[in-house]
């Protein structure tokens, strides 16, 4: 069975929590005691109807304030597939939280209120999904019950959204009319929208093709292996054992492959590939394995082993898209730690090329500093050369984080574009 990670984007008013609740409820993924708990909680509120949104508010302050504070993860499965729902809050600190949640997802559900159509939020969520390289977007047009299940309303929104999608880098867009509150087209087919012939939301999630999760690549992605840890038992019988432990973050490696170790540039060939002492001839992403090389090369954590036939860019001057995630502003000249894969190096922000207006997609020049939730194109200068791929081609080696050296907090999400 395979695994699909998807994010739901939309403000509280769009019915996001209700949609997740409905998906879990109608797919029978809520157990009796959990249901009783929300029934009890619903009764103490107003109209006595079960409030499915209560399922997703996990923290005391969220229940007190009726808002969602942080990303939560939920799990369910059907006979066809396992799912991880990344439930990102729509309200406060939206950009930061959505970026956090979206970074590992293969699909995004963008909720649209049928009464309001495409609004600023829709544009913002779609832009983030596109920047983060999520290959599949489902535009879930919710609250169809409040527009009389009108096919015209649905068609108008589809046309409007398709215009917007043209400006974005999104591979596959699907449109589903539904009512999360009443359960129309979420798990069960709606009897009120006979005109809609497409799949229900769950059918779509169960069948969408996620084989090809990595962006616009026709050819297979290149082999990349950031070294996490060196295994050296140093016992009498394993005196010379030296295994490089890590995860293949993209592509594949075969025994006998010529590899290059970065940043040193030394070359060797793969002598053995192991998982828990079992030898393999070939290993693919995302397997965690141990590699052995034919020659003695100086390798430690932070190095990147790549297939010699397809090497990444190495540079100390990088152009990148940045989502700023801290309340402390990011100013030109500030220094941070840049982490790409397992390697860390100090860097400084050389230039803010432009800030991106997340609602209009306009590029704003002349910006000196970035505030929480701002998106911008920047130039970074690093202390050591960084080996990377463009994020648009390879999420694994193109995604990076900025860390504040004094607070140690992760302050920026970086999507590397290329050499500056």
């Amino acid at each position, binding site marked *: *069975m*395979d*695994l699909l990670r998807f994010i739901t984007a939309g403000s509280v008013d769009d019915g996001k929590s209700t949609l997740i609740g409905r998906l879990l409820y109608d797919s029978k993924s809520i*157990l*009796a*005691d959990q249901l009783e708990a929300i029934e009890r*909680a619903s009764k103490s509120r107003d109209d006595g109807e079960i409030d499915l949104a209560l399922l997703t*508010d*996990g*923290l*005391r*302050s969220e*229940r007190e304030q009726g808002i969602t*504070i*942080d*990303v*939560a*993860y*939920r*799990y369910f*499965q059907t006979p066809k597939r*396992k799912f*991880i729902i990344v439930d990102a809050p729509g309200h406060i600190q939206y950009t*930061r*939280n959505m*970026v*956090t949640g979206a*970074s*590992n997802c293969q699909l995004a559900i963008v909720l649209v209120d049928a009464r309001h159509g495409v609004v600023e939020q829709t544009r913002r969520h779609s832009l983030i999904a596109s920047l983060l390289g999520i290959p599949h977007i489902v535009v879930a047009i919710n609250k169809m019950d409040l527009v009389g299940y009108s096919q015209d309303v649905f068609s108008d929104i589809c046309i409007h959204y398709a215009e917007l999608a043209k400006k974005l880098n999104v591979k596959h867009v699907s449109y589903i009319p539904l009512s999360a509150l009443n359960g129309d087209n979420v798990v069960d087919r709606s009897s009120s929208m006979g005109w809609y012939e497409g799949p229900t939301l769950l059918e779509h999630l169960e069948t969408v093709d996620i084989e090809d999760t990595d962006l616009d690549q026709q050819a297979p992605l290149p082999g990349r292996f950031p070294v*996490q*840890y060196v*295994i*050296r*038992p140093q016992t009498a019988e*394993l005196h010379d054992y030296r*295994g490089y*432990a*890590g*995860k293949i*973050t993209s592509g594949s490696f075969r025994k006998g492959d010529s590899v290059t170790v970065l940043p040193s540039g030394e070359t060797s060939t793969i002598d053995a590939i192991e*998982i*828990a*002492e079992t030898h393999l001839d*070939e290993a*693919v992403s*995302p397997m*965690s394995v141990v590699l052995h090389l034919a020659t003695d090369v100086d390798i430690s*954590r932070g190095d990147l082993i790549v297939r010699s036939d397809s090497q990444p860019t190495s540079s100390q001057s990088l152009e990148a898209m940045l989502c700023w995630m801290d309340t402390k502003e990011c100013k030109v000249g500030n220094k941070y*730690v840049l*982490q790409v*894969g*397992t390697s860390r190096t100090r860097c400084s922000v050389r230039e803010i090329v432009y800030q991106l207006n997340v609602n209009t997609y306009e590029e704003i020049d002349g910006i000196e500093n970035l505030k929480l939730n701002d998106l911008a194109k920047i130039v970074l200068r690093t202390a050591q050369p960084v080996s990377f791929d463009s994020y648009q081609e390879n*999420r694994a080696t193109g*995604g*990076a*984080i900025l*860390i504040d050296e004094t607070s*140690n907090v*992760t302050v920026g*999400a970086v999507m590397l574009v290329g050499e500056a």
Partner: protein
Amino acid sequence: MKLDYLDQLESEAIHIMREVAGQFERPALLFSGGKDSITLVHLALKAFRPGKFPFPLVHIDTGHNFQEALDYRDNLADRIGEKLIVRYVEDTIREKKLKEPTGRNATRNGLQTFTLLDTIEEFEFDACIGGARRDEEKARAKERVFSVRDEFGSWDPKRQRPELWNLYNGRIHKGENVRVFPISNWTELDVWNYIRREKIELPSIYFAHERELLIRDGKLMATAGGVIKPEADDQLVTRRVRFRTVGDISCTAASESQASTLDDVIDEIQATRISERGETRMDDQLSEAAMEDRKKGGYF
């Protein structure tokens, strides 16, 4: 080549453990002899063999543990030749003159936090790997894989670090520590399916057996070792049961079951309509935010 979901979860967990090994100086793996931490040990074998673990196994023993789990714990540490550190809640109670909860449903479970924080200080652990899963509880669903705790072990849900792609930021100040949850994305059923696939041995109390119990507030509680003293209106019974989780005896309920093999157990879990913690953990039902409040206090 396409990876099955269990392979994907396994690979992710191994990756997380190796990040701990690469980023921290003095990590530990919290090991109780329950199925989740047993799974962690199995994953650590896959992550680091033929090398030694870069961390000791640490058990915070409440003194109210099932003997079967303790025996399993000691045998496993022995068999794999890794270091096991045990610290006792009993000692903390004595040394710090802590007040033990009394009364009908008294449990030492909450006092574990004190012993855990002392142990972290004693060994200067900067990371503690634990077997918590996000599907267990609604507050857990919000927690990061790398969960930074302050010097009091306290979790602040509003100050969590963004966690992007598969990049984990374990940088901390001295005195802080990180709780790391490699099987965050696993569900109860995933753990059982993995145990079956990997043929991992478990303590016998996970399988159906006859046991003396008392019925209290509708739950079947073990009388093992006299931890729970029967009161006048408690009904003593002998039933065929198994345990779905293995925690402190005083707050872990048994389930009636005929499931004596892994296949039976998995069938039973697939058919159940009650969640793992809902069925077995008395301590989560004390209030709506019981788990969240304990974690803010430094609990795992």
